[in-house]
């Protein structure tokens, strides 16, 4: 699905990198621990998280992710949004909680993260 479809499914707002809303993404993961994202995530293009700091953007960038969805109405700072814009990562914000947001995307066909060894 496209990032735009994710935005619509989650009633989300786009806060950065709007120009990339029509990118296609195939899988997603949800976590508040960047440690776990770095260790377990493989090729997921979308990160749903309730954590808001600049390391969310850097982690997404290191993992070659395309989109961050902040759940529970979290408000990223202008600095965070600027980082995302520079890195070409779309930022969405939804009022839905993690469980519901993940559930919606899952049941609409966005694949879960493949947990496992990368090498």
């Amino acid at each position, binding site marked *: 699905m496209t990032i735009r479809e994710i935005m619509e499914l989650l009633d989300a707002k786009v806060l950065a990198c709007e120009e990339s809303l029509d990118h296609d993404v195939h899988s997603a993961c949800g976590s508040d621990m960047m440690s776990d994202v770095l*260790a377990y995530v493989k090729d997921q293009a979308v990160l749903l998280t309730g954590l808001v700091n600049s390391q969310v953007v*850097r982690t997404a960038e290191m*993992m070659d992710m395309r989109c961050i969805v902040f759940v529970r109405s979290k408000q990223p700072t202008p600095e965070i949004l600027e980082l995302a814009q520079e890195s070409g990562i779309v930022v969405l914000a939804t009022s839905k909680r993690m469980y519901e947001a993940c559930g919606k995307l899952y049941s609409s066909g966005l694949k879960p993260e493949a947990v496992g060894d990368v090498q």
Partner: protein
Amino acid sequence: MNDAVVLHFDVDGENFTSAGEASVQVKKTLRQMGFPPEVIRRVSIAMYEGEINMVIHAGGGKADVTVDSDKIHIVLADKGPGIADIDLAMQEGYSTAKDNIRSLGFGAGMGLPNMKRYSDHMEVESALGKGTTITMDIYLS
């Protein structure tokens, strides 16, 4: 033709927000140099984990990255508290991070094992009260 590209960074230990800037810069440079995405990803993640560790556990340090014809060589050196038991620290899930670090999204005890996994060769040298130096190589086949 064999000129190695050398990058040096001072990693600020006082500023969690800027942590990872060196890794972002290395990633950009490797992209410009046209390395395969998989190599770039391995270097990025391994270095980012190490950079974050220097900030949250050691009060900052220095990062040196050398891009050679056959490998990418990363040295992360700090003058932090050192690691008492390196074998223990290398185990998945071992962490001394407190709640304040967990609330920032780190401290699962996965960083060092992840650095080992993404590098082809890794060495950890550490002395209590003196600091830690981590060397990683990613080979370019």
